[in-house]
């Protein structure tokens, strides 16, 4: 049974608590029915406030929230047919697992027999049957999360809202429960909106990643777009995996620019022909850390169109499948190369070695 359309549209959404500053500042977003959407941003960026407004626990100051074609502002959570999974779960500490999950059915006036039948089915689905009579205090973090999920899903909502659902778990469990969330989402076939400050979590789970800063959406789109093609310095740095450089345009070519900055010159970057850039403009550019190739300074210059910056190795971290090499390429800025493990150990570098950090112009991208 399909629980009704769960597509969400946020239009001009603003929230202010003091009438002066907007915690959420003009957010527009469309989330299709059945999508897994992650709001990503540092604490205080307004992502939880958006979630609470969709859930109906806060009212927007301005703007509309449309779920399944219907403006839900002012409706109670039940009327919206949304359900929320709270940060650190907020389970009812005095009720057993079974009664926690049955709570929503109980307040709807279902008889004990009726609601326990539904709860037993749900507990089987999330593998809680053996724990039915335990109190939340006697459950592990992962089990508590499953109870919270079951409690939210029992009413067959069309949208499930998750506030930092994995933050209370340890690292290993987090990865396992991440899969569980995704599996549940597929099984239930409903829209999930998930708030997190962990970029790995967001890109691993989401169909749509929404990166936020100070109440505004910086970028939204499929995980790969946001990770591989960040629109600006903020998104690139927040998602990680990129080296961000800034400098002045020295030369404009047909499909590439040459950038220089106080410490380094001759940085080549590919540019879309539609983009209008003039000589002397200040721009930011990003290069993926795994696109950087490290060469011994003695092995000669790389071919044309490539950038080669002399760098000293500051530190080396072994990461298993790759090796993280920290360089002083741009003084006072982080510059990191991810070298595949096998490549690295064919000719390992040491801290203090001087190398050339190279990449071809096509691998660098101009940011907004």
């Amino acid at each position: 049974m399909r629980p009704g359309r769960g597509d969400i549209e946020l239009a001009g959404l603003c929230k202010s608590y003091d009438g002066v500053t907007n915690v959420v500042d003009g957010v527009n977003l469309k989330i299709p029915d059945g999508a897994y959407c992650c709001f990503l941003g540092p604490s205080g960026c307004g992502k939880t406030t958006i979630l609470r407004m969709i859930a109906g626990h806060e009212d927007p100051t301005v703007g509309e929230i449309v779920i399944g074609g219907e403006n839900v502002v002012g409706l109670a959570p039940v009327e919206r047919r949304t359900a929320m999974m709270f940060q650190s779960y907020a389970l009812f500490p005095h009720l057993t697992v079974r009664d926690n999950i049955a709570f929503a059915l109980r307040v709807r006036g279902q008889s004990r027999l009726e609601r326990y039948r539904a709860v037993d089915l749900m507990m089987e689905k999330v593998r809680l049957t053996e724990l039915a009579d335990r109190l939340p205090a006697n459950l592990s973090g992962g089990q508590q999360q499953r109870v919270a999920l079951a409690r939210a899903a029992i009413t067959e909502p069309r949208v499930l809202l998750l506030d930092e659902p994995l933050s209370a778990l340890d690292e290993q469990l987090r990865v396992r429960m991440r899969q569980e969330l995704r599996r549940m989402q597929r099984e239930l076939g409903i829209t999930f909106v998930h708030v997190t400050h962990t970029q790995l979590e967001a890109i691993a789970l989401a169909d749509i990643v929404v990166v936020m800063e100070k109440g505004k959406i910086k970028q939204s789109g499929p995980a790969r777009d946001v990770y591989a093609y960040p629109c600006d310095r903020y998104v690139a740095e927040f998602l990680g995996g990129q080296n961000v450089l800034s400098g002045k345009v020295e030369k404009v070519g047909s499909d590439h620019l040459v950038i220089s900055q106080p410490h380094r010159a001759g940085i080549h970057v590919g540019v879309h022909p539609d983009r209008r850039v003039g000589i002397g403009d200040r721009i930011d550019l990003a290069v993926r850390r795994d696109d950087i190739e490290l060469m011994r300074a003695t092995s000669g210059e790389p071919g044309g169109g490539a950038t080669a910056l002399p760098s000293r190795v500051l530190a080396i971290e072994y990461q298993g499948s790759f090796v993280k090499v920290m360089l002083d390429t741009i003084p006072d800025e982080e510059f990191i190369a991810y070298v595949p493990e096998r490549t690295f150990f064919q000719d390992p570098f040491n801290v203090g070695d001087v190398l050339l950090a190279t990449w071809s112009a096509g691998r660098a991208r101009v940011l907004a």
Partner: protein
Amino acid sequence: MSRQSWVAWLYVTPLMLVLVPFFLIPILVVLVASVLETDGFGGLIPTFTLANYVGVLTSAQTFHLYAATLKFTALTWFFTLVIGFLVAYFLVFHVKNQLLAISLFLICTVPFWTSNIIRMISWIPLLGKEGLVNSALLGTGIIREPLEVLLYSSVAVVIAYVHQLTIFMVVPIFNSMARIDKRVVEAALDSGASRLDVMRLIIIPMSKSGIALGSIFVVSIVMGDFFVVKVMSGGGSASVVSAFYENVGVLQYPIAAASAVLLTVILIVVISLILRAVDIRREITQ
């Protein structure tokens, strides 16, 4: 004695220094006195007799006194519970401003800034025949004759108790309510619970330990009191304690001691019933 058990004894010494002279010895003295005979002039004859207990337990007066005391206890408990719960609920869930909540909390303690006797006397201009309440009611034409039942009556006793003891309900209930995670309430609302459901299914069960603690305070204070009954009833009602206060006045120490032991036993029964309903230790350490 090993070093470890020596240290353990050292840890409990401060507690023992308080409990033994101020609790254990007085109780023992009362216990001993309750099985002695009096010589009628305040002296005690060292012997062993259960006559004092027989006297207390077979006297019809004892039952009347307990009936009266239990009536006051039940009424006071009921009203302090309702008022105390509502005050605590208001302070915890409706007053958003922390500073305001603390000031309101302090206002609740204002009556305690003065002595019990002053508080008691203050009821006279309020509840008396020509007091404020009566003149207000007469003035608005609701009654024609002043209500005599307001002062020097059972009503007055209960009013005075409730006024005096509600704070003992407010504090522990406030304490247990303040520990309820607001997100738990939100989660209930999210599940479609009405305000009444939240109260019935979440807040009351989660305030149980506070309610039990407050009930123990109120019940034991009312059952052990004689002063309020005496003053506020104008001598019209008596309590268990006022009876053995009078025994002491006429130097009947053994009878008074036997009554005291009986009251202690009954209080222990009542409190253990409360504790049976709510496992305070588990609730608090959770």
